[in-house]
């Protein structure tokens, strides 16, 4: 546990009768990106709130940057930076004033503060909008400003609670680049997300949270071994054609007994899909419908818990 930036054991939290966290154990190595993956209502934000001293756990212990979150709140707060689910910027201040406020509260001193503020504005591509009120910013710009505010004072551990939820694909990519760069600078990052793709691309380790329990933990590669890989779904007009295709394609299986859909393992790339369709064509097997399926969070949940994610259940 020497090298742990975040170490938690047996964290429990309930709101009245609603058990939100039921014995969470976490160990995040210094300088790595750790992702807590789970659907809405799994307990991700509650975990972040406990680790960042916003709420107290009912049971269990957690140490962040070597300090106990329950008894050494001051030391924990001095070591961390937090960007919550909703951009926590002051809308009646300009971008620059928001950063200046953080610099003042961190007592950077007027000279260094100026350099830090200018540097962050440039790094996050906000220099042009620096003098505009944050209320006029787009969603992506607010998130960037929010993260920039978190970075003032160089925290050693950064918590990002669903940093890309609600962002358009381009802003999401920008955010990913920023997160990777932070990690490259040696910052420990604790990231929560609903997107498997996001965790996969960014995280060194992933923990899957479901209804307050951790159902799996490991590297992205380890986790993906536990879930069905991407596959191609082929629909046929008759049983004869389906049987022929099944013989031709190794590893293929019927999706269900009563329909004419075949699941074929495939990486979903254009090359392999073309080869697959050509092969069927050569044997005059007609494909009625065709789709590529990549694993998403629901597949992970199905594979790990034997049921769909809680979000699906609620429907």
């Amino acid at each position, binding site marked *: 546990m020497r090298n742990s930036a975040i170490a938690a054991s047996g964290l429990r939290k309930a709101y009245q009768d609603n058990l939100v966290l039921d014995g969470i154990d976490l160990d995040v190595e210094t300088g790595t990106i750790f992702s807590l993956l789970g659907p809405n209502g799994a307990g991700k934000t509650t975990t972040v709130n406990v680790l960042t001293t916003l709420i107290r756990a009912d049971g269990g212990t957690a140490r962040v940057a070597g300090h106990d979150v329950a008894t050494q709140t001051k030391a924990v707060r001095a070591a961390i930076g*937090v960007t919550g689910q909703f951009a*926590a910027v002051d809308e*009646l201040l300009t971008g620059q*004033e928001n950063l200046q*406020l953080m610099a*003042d*509260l961190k007592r950077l001193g007027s000279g260094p503060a100026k350099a830090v503020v200018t540097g962050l504005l440039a790094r996050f591509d906000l220099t042009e909008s620096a003098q505009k009120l944050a209320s006029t910013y787009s969603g992506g710009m607010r998130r960037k400003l929010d993260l920039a505010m978190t970075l003032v004072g160089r925290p050693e551990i950064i918590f990002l609670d669903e940093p890309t939820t609600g962002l358009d694909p381009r802003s999401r990519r920008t955010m990913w680049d920023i997160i990777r760069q932070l990690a490259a600078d040696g910052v420990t990052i604790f990231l929560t997300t609903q997107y498997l793709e996001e965790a996969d691309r960014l995280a060194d380790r992933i923990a899957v949270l479901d209804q307050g329990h951790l159902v799996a933990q490991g590297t992205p590669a380890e986790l993906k071994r536990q879930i069905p890989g991407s596959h191609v779904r082929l629909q046929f007009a008759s049983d004869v054609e389906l049987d022929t295709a099944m013989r031709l394609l190794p590893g293929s299986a019927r999706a269900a007994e009563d329909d004419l859909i075949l699941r074929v393992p495939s990486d979903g790339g254009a090359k392999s899909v073309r080869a697959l369709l050509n092969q069927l064509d050569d044997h005059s097997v007609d494909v009625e419908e065709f789709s590529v399926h990549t694993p998403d969070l629901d597949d992970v949940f199905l594979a790990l818990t034997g049921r769909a994610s809680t979000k699906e259940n609620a429907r």
Partner: protein
Amino acid sequence: MSADATIMLRRNFKHTLRNPVAVFNAILLPIVIMLMFVGEIGGAFNVGVKYVEYATPGMIVLTICYGLSATALAVNSDMAKGIINRFKVMDISRSAVLSAQVVATVLRTLVAVAAIVGVAFALGFRPHASFPEWLGAIGLIVLISFATSWFTIALGLAAKTPESAGMAVVPLILLPFLSSAIVPADKMGPGIRQFAEYQPFTPIIETLRGLLTGHPSASNAITALAWCAGIALVGYLWSLATFTRRA
């Protein structure tokens, strides 16, 4: 005041300057009410002295209370926007955000009170207060504003939405109307008269009136100070408890 609170106060000042409509509202409406009562209706009341002399202390207190709705809204929107959670996870003093709001409210209130006193002078208000009595009156005004601000901050924190935060301060804004602000309590009907006599704003306004007319009453002053201290203490403790609980 702590360094954190000073930084927060600067933030509140910028907010105030960028929301001039709220400031105008807090200054203008009490003036309109004053003109209405003194200019239009005032002649109909027989209060023993020139009506503007009678009404001004009440109008000052009314001005203090009217400005509170802006504070309740500001506190509530801070909570709703998530910026408070950012402050909470930083190594800064818990009460800095709240005490900065109180100081900002008191200063804003003093500007509005200065405006209403200016209008009162224009309408013929000629107080007979000595210099120490003036100091006492200003001190009392600051104290009322301080106490009601803490109470308003608690209301703003406890409210779930900006709308309910706005509603929560309405009783505080209306209370001065049901006191001896506009007519003496003994001229009121039964029921309302007892209410007016025992509610906090009557002794507060009577103390202020006594100071400004040069006839301060010690018993009213003690009751007024006790009310202010009580309101401030309840507001302060309630605010801190709510602030710590709400994540």
